[in-house]
């Protein structure tokens, strides 16, 4: 095929949107419908990989669509950070679709067609967001992403889902319209442009107070980055079916948030300006507090998905810190952490969903001993946990390494301690789960009598080692992402190249 790169870029955004028509048309034939989704996934990966090769070959890929108001355009431009995000999102979409087929069918969910349609729109929005050439285009896709994921969050249609959806939409729309839009309008007014530019768009003599205020507005306004106190939407979104939680609320939506933060820090403010703004330090501490508090809250959650959600809030804080450190290792660490955390967290969510559909358990206290029934799932859970914690032999090691380097370079020792403490907390809230799953009778840590009784009861009941894993498509998905976590440790070079190319225009 001889498609120009520009055409491919546009196709990458339009294709998922167009596929919704085919998905809706084949709604009554589930096998065809999923066939359409899988085909779209494969085509999208093909397009994105081609774009990646084009970018590696040093080509500039720019597309202009429309001028909405004078100077305010919808246009696209590929740069390494967006490329990285698009690669992850498109690849994990395929894996998640595979997982969703097993999950949605064995869980007998209603309205599956609507589910796949909204999913495809969300992915189209992510592609648009990743390739945006200016803040305005990014904002449009940011809002499309919020609105298209709302039906997914409220998928169950229950009172609880409705309430979750209200929090979800309420926080995301409020922050994006009240803070983000105000920041965009003001940036437009102060800088005269919204184009992403290496080194930032503000003039050198810009008033530091105004730019500092704008930075605060941006960080608060990008609610998808889930910096406390605007994180409540993420736990609320956990009422969604697990495939949604795993792809959208561990990868696409939250990463769209931190991606936007990185974009704003690097291409709107520029690292030089960012380093001297009066509010940067305050925001760093805010993100640090978010990292630590979310980890502590995560420890207290008994619902597995809720624990994972708070863990995500905490990990997103790492990425925001990396962006705000305004050094190259911080940005590299953040960019890499987008990928590393994506693979780790999506695996954890896949496992949580697998446990839910096969054993119908969602509470951590009920999960003792399940390692005997679902050994593969729990091994995957263990490996992914290691990646989130950031220890070898998993990918998370590298990104956390660079983030640490960043804090040391800038002499932010308080933050360094926070990051280390949070890693310890990660161990405390993640590792006991696979540990107790495999060794239910070792109850050294728990003191609650009730839990002991439960574990004894379950220990007595299941002497038979009946293996009952998740449906095959779901299991394959789990294995693929787990291998991803390991591969990224052994072979992080392409990722590192992309991450370090984010700033290459700076030299």
């Amino acid at each position: 095929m001889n498609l120009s790169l520009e055409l491919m870029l546009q196709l990458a955004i339009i294709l998922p949107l167009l596929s919704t028509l085919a998905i809706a048309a084949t709604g009554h034939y589930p096998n065809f419908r999923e066939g359409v989704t899988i085909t779209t996934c494969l085509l999208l990966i093909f397009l994105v990989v081609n774009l990646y090769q084009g970018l590696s070959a040093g080509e500039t890929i720019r597309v202009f669509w429309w001028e909405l108001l004078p100077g305010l355009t919808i246009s696209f431009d590929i740069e390494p950070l967006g490329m990285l995000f698009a690669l992850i999102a498109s690849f994990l979409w395929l894996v998640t679709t595979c997982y969703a087929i097993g999950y949605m069918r064995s869980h007998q969910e209603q309205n599956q067609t609507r589910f796949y349609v909204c999913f495809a729109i969300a992915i189209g929005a992510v592609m648009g967001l990743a390739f945006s050439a200016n803040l305005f285009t990014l904002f449009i896709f940011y809002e499309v992403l919020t609105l298209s994921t709302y039906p997914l969050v409220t998928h169950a249609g229950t009172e609880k889902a409705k309430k979750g959806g209200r929090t979800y939409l309420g926080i995301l729309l409020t922050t994006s319209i009240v803070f983000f839009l105000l920041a965009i309008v003001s940036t437009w007014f102060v800088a005269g442009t919204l184009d992403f530019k290496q080194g930032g768009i503000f003039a050198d003599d810009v008033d530091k107070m105004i730019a500092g205020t704008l930075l605060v507005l941006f960080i608060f306004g990008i609610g998808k980055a889930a910096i406390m106190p605007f994180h409540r939407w993420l736990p609320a979104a956990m009422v969604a079916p697990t495939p949604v939680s795993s792809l959208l609320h561990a990868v696409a939506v939250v990463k769209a948030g931190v991606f936007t933060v990185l974009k704003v820090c690097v291409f709107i403010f520029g690292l030089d300006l960012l380093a001297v703004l009066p509010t940067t330090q305050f925001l760093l501490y805010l993100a640090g507090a978010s990292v630590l508090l979310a980890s502590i809250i995560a420890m207290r959650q008994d619902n597995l998905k809720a624990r994972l959600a708070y863990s995500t809030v905490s990990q997103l804080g790492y990425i925001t810190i990396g962006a705000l450190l305004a050094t190259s290792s911080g940005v590299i660490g953040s960019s890499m952490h987008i990928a590393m955390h994506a693979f780790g967290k999506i695996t954890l969510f896949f496992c949580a969903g697998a446990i839910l559909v096969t054993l119908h358990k969602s509470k951590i206290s009920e999960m003792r001993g399940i390692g005997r029934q679902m050994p593969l799932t729990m091994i995957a859970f263990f490996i992914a946990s290691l990646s989130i914690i950031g220890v070898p032999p998993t990918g998370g090691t590298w990104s956390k390494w660079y983030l640490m380097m960043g804090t040391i370079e800038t002499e932010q020792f308080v933050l360094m301690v926070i990051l280390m403490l949070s890693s310890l907390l990660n161990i405390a809230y993640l590792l006991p789960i696979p540990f107790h799953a495999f060794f239910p009778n070792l109850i050294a840590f728990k003191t609650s009598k009730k839990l002991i009784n439960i574990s004894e009861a379950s220990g007595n009941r299941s002497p038979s080692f009946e293996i009952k894993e998740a449906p095959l498509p779901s299991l394959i998905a789990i294995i693929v992402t787990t291998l991803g976590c390991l591969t990224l440790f052994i072979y992080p070079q392409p990722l590192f190249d992309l991450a370090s190319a984010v700033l290459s225009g700076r030299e």
Partner: protein
Amino acid sequence: MIAHLPILQVIIPLMAAPICLMLKRTQLVWLFSLLTSGLAFAVSVLLLQQVMTSGLISYELGGWQAPWGIEYRIDKLNAFLLLIISGISTIVLFAAQTSIEKEIPKDKHIYFYVLYLLSLTGMLGIVATGDAFNVFVFLEISSLSAYALIAMGKNKQALWASYQYLIMGTIGATFILIGIGLMYQMTGTLNMYDLSQRLPEVAQSRTVFAAFAFVIVGVCLKLALFPLHLWLPNAYAYAPSIVTAFFAATATKVAIYLLIRFTFSVFGLSFSFTTIPLQTLFMALGLIGIFVASFAAIFQSNIKHLFAYSSIAQIGYMIVGFSISSVTGLTATLLHLFNHALMKSAIFLALAAVVFRVGNVQLNSLRGLGRQMPLTMAAIVLGGLSLIGVPLTVGFVSKWYLLIALVEQGWWPVAGLILLGSMLAVAYVWRIVEVAYFKEPVGPPIKEAPMSFLVPIWALVIANIYFGIDTRISVQVAEAAAQSLFGVSL
């Protein structure tokens, strides 16, 4: 023919109204009214084209020269308004016949069209004329027909709502008349252009101040500026649905036009904004209006009431833009005039379809309607998103201009408040979404609205999105109109 366009704009619907009475058959009358309105729309398109290319059109009625005879004066501002009014009127009329069959007794159908056309005449007349007394005459034509139209609603409350509107509207019109009288006393002229030339000489007199106060208060009553808005919610809620769709998109816009015309053209910018602290006053009232009305909208259980309060809030946005008194601010107001007409006509027309199928628009009756009337409900959701100001809808464009105008002046806190206000819109729109999409339907199954509703509704919804993306026409006209108001007066 082309030279007579300004008067044709008004005379076509005026003449058509009595002809309706002779036609006798309802279907025929409907088609005739539709044709008339369409013709008026064509005239306004031609007028706008002419004004945009060759500037101001002055038409002397009966050949009597300007300060003595009545002059029709079409500039960019009123050509834009004429287009909005006649355009919305035409689209709404498409659905009229189906809608009134269920809402108005058969023997009154013809009267409905007569009154509708008269009301249209009144509004077009107010906007087209360049004569202050003529404004009052057309104001009365449009108001009197409006009172009768609202009273046609099928509930008993319609009479009471119409009566409330009658009292308030009459007070407003009287105030305007008193104001015009005082101006006449001081200058001896009724021609607006002439007034604008002569008023500065006597600007410091107490009579002119009184005239100004009377005119402004009267106009604000008509445009339902907080706290003079109390007549509006009931009038909108109990009028026949078609009437609501027409009025919500046009009636208050005409009043805002009058406000702009009197402050900017007749009294002049320096008098209105320097001598009198209109800016602070309107900014405050606009903002309070946005918040009070939006909060009130959140707690309504009748959807028509809900959107009526939302209209009051939207008027607040226009008033804030107006009070900035800069070119960008006025552009924002004019854009919102156009954009809000598109949103509200789409929403109220969709509500008319709901009334047609369900019988009422209580929030509880909307349960499960998202599945039963998917296209109608989707139109309400899209209209609602536009109201919130989501990008790629018209609501975003006008909000963007309003924000730029505020930031230009350095009024950041106000910009923040404006955005906070749009969050209240999320709250009231989402109440409808939750009921329509998450509650199980009750009662017998309901069919999707007929095509006679769906076509005009979706034409408006698509316009909502089209003008949100292709902003060239609307922005260009609004900007040109705003600039001309700030340039040489009239």
